[in-house]
Every structure is written in C-alpha cells, then in structure tokens.
C-alpha cells in the first residue's frame, strides 16, 4: 500500500479532489442559487434582503398539503413495490428459465425513456386506451369510454405504477450485477447443503449480502421517485400535482415573483427526499434486526413453488405491460387516423417518420457525442476515485464522496439556475465543454453508484496475489481488476450513457439553447401531445441506450466465453 508514492499513485491521489472539484463548484453555485432566493435574495428580481416571506407563502399554499401527500404516497409506494418485487422475483425464480428469459429482456425496459413509457402506459390503460379499444364496443358495450379515473387518479396510483415499471428494471439490473460479487452461487450451495429451501435459503443467505450492495441504488430510486417530473406530468393528477411538478410550474410562471416560492419549494423538496431516505434507513435497521432473528431461528422453508408462481407471474405481467406500452407507441408512430373505439389505426402513414428524418439525424449525432463523452469521463473519474481508495487502503471512509449524490437529491430545475448563472458569468455557456460537464453532474452519480459496490466488493486477495507475483499496481488494475469487473464497468458506462441521453433541463440550461438532442426535441414536441411524434422520438431515444446496454452485456459474454467463472451467475 505504500506504493501510493509512485508517480501514478500521485496522480490518482488527486482523483477524488478533482472529481469533487468538478462537482463542488456547480453544486455550490446550484445550492446558493436555490437557497438565497428561497430566503428572498435574487437581485435580478429585486430581492435584496433575507427573510422568511417565501416560506410563509409556501407553507400556507393551498396546494402544498395535497402535493406533499401525493408525492410521498406515490414515491414511497413505487420504491417499496419495486424493491419487493425484485427481491421476491430473484429469491424465488433464480435459476429458472423464466429468470434467464426476463434477464435478457431487461435491457429494452431500461432503454425506453421515462416519458415515453409514461405516455405509452397512459394510452394503454386509459378508459379510452388500447385495452379498452380492443374490447369495445363489441364486448364491453362502451360506445363512449367509461368515465372512470384510471390515469391521473387523485391518489397517484397510476404514477406509482408507472414508476414501478421504469424503476424496477434498474433495481433488478443492480441486483443481478451484485449477485456475482455477493458470491450468490456459493452461498446458495451452502444453504442448500444445510437443507434450506431455494427461496428461504436465498433470502437468508444471499439477500443480506446483496442488499448491502444495492442500498445506494435503492436510495437513488427513492430520490428519483419523489422528484420525478416528466412521468408525473403524464400520469399524476394536475390538481394538485406532485411537489416537483408544482415547483417547476412556479419556476416557469410568467409571474417572476413566484421564483422565490419555487426556490423555497425546491429546498423543501430536498428535505423531503433526505427525510424519506432517513426514514427508509431507519426501517432498514428494524427489518435487519427482525430479519436476523428470523435467519438464525432455523426455519428451512419449502420448495417455494407458490412463491415462484406469484412472483414470476407478477414480474411477467409487469414486463407485458411495459412491452405493450412501448408497442402501442410504435403503432402510433405509424398511425394515420386512430379514433376511439378502433382497435387499430384506420390508416397507416410514414409521415411522422419522414417529416422528422432530418431533425432526427441532426439530434442523434449531438446526443451521441455528448453521451459518449459524459459517460466516458464519468467512468474514468469513478474508476480513478475507487482505485485510489483501494491503493491508499481507504475503506469507504472517504466521506466527501457522498457529495457526488447531491445532484440526484436537489430538484434539477432549482439547481441548474445557479449553474447557468455561473456559466454565463464565466462566458462558457452554450459550449460543448459546459454541456458535457452539466451532463457529467447527473451521469457520474449513477456511474459511481453502479460501480462502487462491485468495485469495493472485489476480493482484495486477487490483487494481493498478483502483486506477490511481481505486478505493479497499474498492471494489477489493467490485467486483473478491469477484466474481472468488465461487466459492471460496461453496465455502469451504459447506464451513464442512458442517463445522458435522457437529460433535458441540463441540456436546455447549460446548452444555452444551442444544442438539439433527441430529448430536447422529444420533450418540446411532446408538448403538443401528438402520440405519432412521441412514438417516433421515443423509438430513436430508446434505440441508442439499447445499443449501449446490448454491448455492455455482449462484450463480456464474448470475451469470457471460455471462462466459466466470469460468466453471469444465474
């Protein structure tokens, strides 16, 4: 470990500092840009003194209680359901054919943009939607759609369901990636030898190790679910909307004085997320305590057939819903006229595709450049930080790195105004560098999140053995660690790329309106609510990350085709 003094180690030593520096400046600017207006200070709008006026206005706002209730119920419900489903499925179905089949189908689910999934889902399940059209009016008798609130329901259930459809695949991916590092197969072998059933054995021996690795991704899901804007605009009610949508509405309100209220709301949003994660952390401890007792009490459990059917069935249903939501958007992209109650479009038209071909090519190239650069940069920084941590024998004690997660916790719209002001003042807004930088802010947390636990869980004895054979730390890194961690590394890159592709507000704010990506184009056009256009852009928007994920799975599989132990555990 004393090798930190080598030149390479010297460079590496600055990795956390550099990473945090890249982060701290915009984060500090973002936070200042949020907290000052929240307390009344924003000179451009004439706020020059500090006070609690906007807090009073916020806390007395008639929409606030409803918005908070909606945010908390839908966000917590979605996070808990996603996690429960993933655990139930992996525990009961690991090793089955269904498991392998659904694992292969995971990538498309991850790649479909949130807002596209939401629009497809809304059309699928709405009273005038596809499912209703398929049975109307011949079977249902509905000559006009029934007047029931399935989408935009006042309880936010449709939003929670939509979030599960999009967040469950991310947790499932993280869980599957963690299985190898948690040595799931070996643990299960021991558990089975001791007479445990497959489900109970998994829950008792593998889950504790796996959950430790997916804890941060779970927190990210909670933070995302509580501050989601794009899905909420489609699936949540508007009176009142969830807190994040309400804040965005205030930020965009023509009455510029509402920006003070919006800033206070953004701070409240931050606290909501922090408190929710703290509460979750607390319940983790309770579950852990109860679980420990359950684990040692010795109950072996049965064959788990019923659990397998229920969890497998629920998971298959979710996949089917997601698949149909995407399929129906595909049909819309080719639809001419399609009115209720027609089960399919009255005529087919390629117009939506041909009209946008030019814009698509233009936007795709920008999206690719920014996405590859941001994901590559984030990956390099994350690897450098993690490797530095290892070489300097720092355990996860590098506390400052938690700051990396702040961009996930602060509502984007509040955070970015301050960033934009700094960029404008420095005269670097609207440049490629600033655009990529702004994307890295949101890409790096996810890349780090995906990579940190597998990296830290890699058995240090491999590196030690290699060093004993005379390899330098750099050689160990490139010849031992990178190959062994190739899958999580590439998955982290693909996730980073997908996150970059989906960024809307950072592109708009940091890009100064100079850059057109698939997402800025899609979001702008989705304002018009034409499902044909949404279908076209959703398809291309999903296609790019899909290719990245496919590569992340295919490359290690091909490289390790002769190395059984490095293949994906099932």
């Amino acid at each position, binding site marked *: 470990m004393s090798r930190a003094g080598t030149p390479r180690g010297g460079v590496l030593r600055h990795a956390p500092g550099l990473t945090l520096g890249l982060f701290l400046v915009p984060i500090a600017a973002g936070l200042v840009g949020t907290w000052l207006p929240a307390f009344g200070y*924003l*000179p*451009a*709008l*004439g*706020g*020059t003194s500090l006070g609690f*006026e906007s807090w009073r206005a916020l806390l007395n706002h*008639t*929409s606030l*209680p*409803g918005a908070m209730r909606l945010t908390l119920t839908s966000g917590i419900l979605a996070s808990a359901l996603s996690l429960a489903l993933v655990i139930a499925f992996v525990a009961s179905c690991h090793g089955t054919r269904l498991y392998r089949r659904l694992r292969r189908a995971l990538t498309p689910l991850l790649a479909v943009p949130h807002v596209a999934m939401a629009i497809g889902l809304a059309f699928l399940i*709405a009273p*005038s939607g596809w499912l209703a059209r398929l049975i109307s009016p011949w079977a249902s008798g509905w000559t*006009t*759609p029934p*007047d029931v*609130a399935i989408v*935009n*329901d*006042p309880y936010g259930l449709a939003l929670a369901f939509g979030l599960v459809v999009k967040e469950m695949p991310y947790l499932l991916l993280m869980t599957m990636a963690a299985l190898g590092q948690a040595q799931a197969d070996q643990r299960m072998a021991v558990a089975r030898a001791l007479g445990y059933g497959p489900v109970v054995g998994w829950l008792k021996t593998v889950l504790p190790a796996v959950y430790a690795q997916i804890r941060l991704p779970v927190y990210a899901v909670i933070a995302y679910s509580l501050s989601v804007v794009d899905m909420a*605009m489609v699936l949540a*009610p*508007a*009176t*009142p*909307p969830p807190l994040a949508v309400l804040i965005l*509405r205030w930020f*965009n309100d*023509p*009455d*510029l*004085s509402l920006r003070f209220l919006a800033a206070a709301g953004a701070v409240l949003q931050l606290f909501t997320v922090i408190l929710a994660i703290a509460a979750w952390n607390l319940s983790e401890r309770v579950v852990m305590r109860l679980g420990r007792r359950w684990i040692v009490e010795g109950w072996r459990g049965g064959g788990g057939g019923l659990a397998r059917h229920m969890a497998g069935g629920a998971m298959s249903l979710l996949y089917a819903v997601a698949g149909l939501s995407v399929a129906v958007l595909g049909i819309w992209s080719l639809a*001419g006229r399609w*009115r*209720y*109650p027609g089960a399919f479009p009255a005529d087919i*038209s390629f117009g939506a595709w041909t*009209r*946008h071909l030019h814009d698509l090519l233009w936007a795709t190239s920008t999206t690719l450049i920014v996405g590859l650069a941001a994901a590559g940069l984030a990956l390099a920084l994350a690897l450098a930080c993690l490797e530095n941590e290892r070489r300097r024998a720092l355990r996860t004690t590098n506390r400052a790195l938690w700051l990396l997660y702040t961009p996930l916790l602060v509502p984007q719209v509040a955070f970015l*105004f301050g960033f*934009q*002001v700094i960029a*404008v*003042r420095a005269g670097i807004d*609207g440049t490629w560098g600033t655009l990529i930088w702004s994307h890295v802010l949101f890409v790096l947390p996810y890349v780090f999140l995906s990579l940190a636990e597998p990296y830290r869980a890699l058995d240090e004895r491999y590196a030690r053995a290699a060093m004993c054979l005379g390899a330098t730390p750099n050689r160990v890194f490139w010849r031992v660690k990178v190959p062994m961690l190739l899958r999580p590394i590439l998955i982290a890159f693909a996730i980073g790329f997908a996150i970059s592709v989906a960024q809307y507000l950072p592109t*708009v*704010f940091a890009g*100064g*309106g*100079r850059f*057109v990506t698939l997402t800025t*184009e899609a*979001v*702008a056009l989705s*304002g*018009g*609510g*034409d499902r044909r*256009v949404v279908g076209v852009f959703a398809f291309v928007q999903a296609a790019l990350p899909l290719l990245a994920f496919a590569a992340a799975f295919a490359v290690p599989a091909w490289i390790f085709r002769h190395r059984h132990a490095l293949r994906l555990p099932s």
Partner: protein
Amino acid sequence: MRLLRAIALFSAVLGISAPPASAEALKWDVIAAKAKDQTVYWNAWGGDERINAYIAWAGERIWNDYGVTLRHVKLSDTGEAVSRVLAEKTAGRDSDGSVDLIWINGENFAAMKRNQLLFGPFTQALPNFKLVDFAGKPTTLVDFTVPVEGLEAPWGMAKINFVYDSARIQTPPRSIPEFLDWAKANKGRFTYPAPPDFIGSTFLKQVMIELTPDPAALQKPAPEGAAFDTATAPLWSYLEALHPHLWRGGKIFPASGTAQMQMLDDGEVDIAISFYPSDAASLAQNGRLPESARIFVLEGGTIGNTHFVAIPYNARAKEGAMVLANFLMSPEAQARKQDTAVWGDQTVLDVAGLDPAGKKRFDALPAHPALLPPEALGPTLLEPHPSWMTRIEAEWQRRFGG
C-alpha cells in the same frame, strides 16, 4: 406590490433601465445591412410540428432574402427563455445574450416589460408594421391590457372557440349559462384544462366576463377584498354548479389544452376549447380530429388576443431579429401561416387594405368546413387586466385545486 417595490429599489441601486434604441440605429436599410450574416436564435414553443415546419420555412426565406440564419430553439415552455434572459441579467451579461427573439404574449410579456428585459421600441422601424390592422384588431397594440409600446411585433391572432364533433352533437350551447344546461344533459362529456394552463384560465375569464355584474371593471387592476369577492361570486357559484357534471365529476382536470384536444379525438369528451379558430380545420386535415369536426363560438362574443415576437434587451442579433419579425408580418408569410394545410393561424394584417398581390394571397387560401368566416366568429372580447388572471387562478387553486 412586494415585487414592484423590490424592483424599484433594485433599479435605483443599479441604475438599470431599458437601453434606449436610438432612432438613427433603427433605419430599415441600416438594419437590413447589419442583419446580413447574423444568426437569429428564435426561442419559440416547439410543441407543434406544423408550427415548427412553418418556422423552418421562414428560416429558408430570410436566408435567401437577407442572408440571415434562423435557428429555432424549441421550448416546452416560454418561461425557459425568460429564465435564460433572467440568468444572463443576473450574471451581468447585458449584451451578447443567447436569446434573439421570443414568441410571447400576455403575462410573459408583462413580466419581461416590467423587469426591463426587452429591447425597443423597434416595431415602428419595420416596413410591414404599417400593414397591421390596428383598428380592427386593437389587441395588436394592447396585450392583456398592457400597452405594447413597440416592444413586440404582432404575429398572429387567437380567439376562444369551441371544437365539437358534428357527428355526435347537433346543437352545441351558445352561451355560458347554456353550457351549464348542456353539461347537465350530457354528464361527463365536457371539461376544461386546469389553470394555470392558459386555455383553462381563459375559459374562467370567459365565464367571468359573461357573468360578472360590471364587466368594465375587468379592464382595470383587480381590486382587493369585498369588491373582488362581489365581482367573482357569480363565477364561483357557476363553477360549483358546473363541476359535478364535468368529465370525471370535476375531480380531475386535463393538464393542458393539447391534452384536452387529444381527449376529443379519443372520444373522452364531446367539446374541447381552442384558442385558434383554424385549429380544428388544420387538425382535421392532419388526421388528428375527425373530418366531422366543427367549431362554434358564443353569442355574446369570446375572448381574443394577439401573439407577438419580442427581442430581449441583451440580444446579440437584434438586427437579424428585426428582419425576421418584419418578414413574419409580410403578406406572404401571414397568408401562408393562415393556410390550414400549413398551420391555420389568423393574420394580424388588414387584408382589405393590402395591395392586389397581397390580397390575392389571402383570397387563394383553401376553404374548409371547420372554418368559420370572420363575420361568423362573433365579437372579440378583450382580455382582462393580468392581475385578474393571477387572482382568479389563485382562488381557483384554493377552491378546487387541493
């Protein structure tokens, strides 16, 4: 009031005022010469591909005629552009800004004008400005009761109308009270977008104008206290009576005007509110509404307004922006915009006063059964003072938004 006081203070401290546009700089041939080789970043709502295609066409035309490059920055909310100008002002970038032209009106214009974020006056320098029908379309000079004062150039006309499917409805309601009777007889078949969506807010203002005891008071700032309660009491009792008969029992409202138009095509409602009298025809031609779609207006008239283009105070390509604004007011551009096959947005020009070539362009526009001739569109009612909108939206949220 707090904001006004704060702005006054702020302006006094920093000595900021709108940069005066010197008369000499605004000679048309000087403008056109300076505009050459400039790139104009036009920040305009990008939610409609018909409008986007029209803007792309305008870009080709001004490139050919003036050597000006147009880049359409497609916004999902005009507030984004206002936000960017605000950020630039916060950072002290008072020239060389990134927004050259904004598609704007109403509250956004009022806010930018009030905060001195606009360049001008500039419209007098534009040759096509004198073709505008100021007498017939007074909203080209007064935007939501706020005097335009040359800070924005009129681009198109909007007027509340109602779209319905004539295959399903034979006798649509013709007044706000009749709407209530119609909704009672057709439970769950009508709704309006939740304010602050501008279509939803405009519907509330329409109800307000028809029912309030003293409509003239709406042209002045909204009063405080009992006077406001008296003026708005009929609105609230009307809505209390109407809501139980709306779509989803008035418990849920569509999030936007476009969502509501989609609901009409989905068969979820029978009547949708539109701000563009040619919208129904255009959507029907595009396959997004049935061919049997028609529009109707209310007998007492409906609210109308004008939408404009404005130049931020710190725009980089002011001359290019003015060249574009001038082109957008030309008979060629205005007639093309009014064509329902292109977009279907009503002209701001005085068509009768145009030269024969200009008039011919408008006469050649195709007819469509979902279009009403101008005389059938009824009287145009003026937008109330923006303070009414703010107060009514807040009160609506308090009563129905929780």
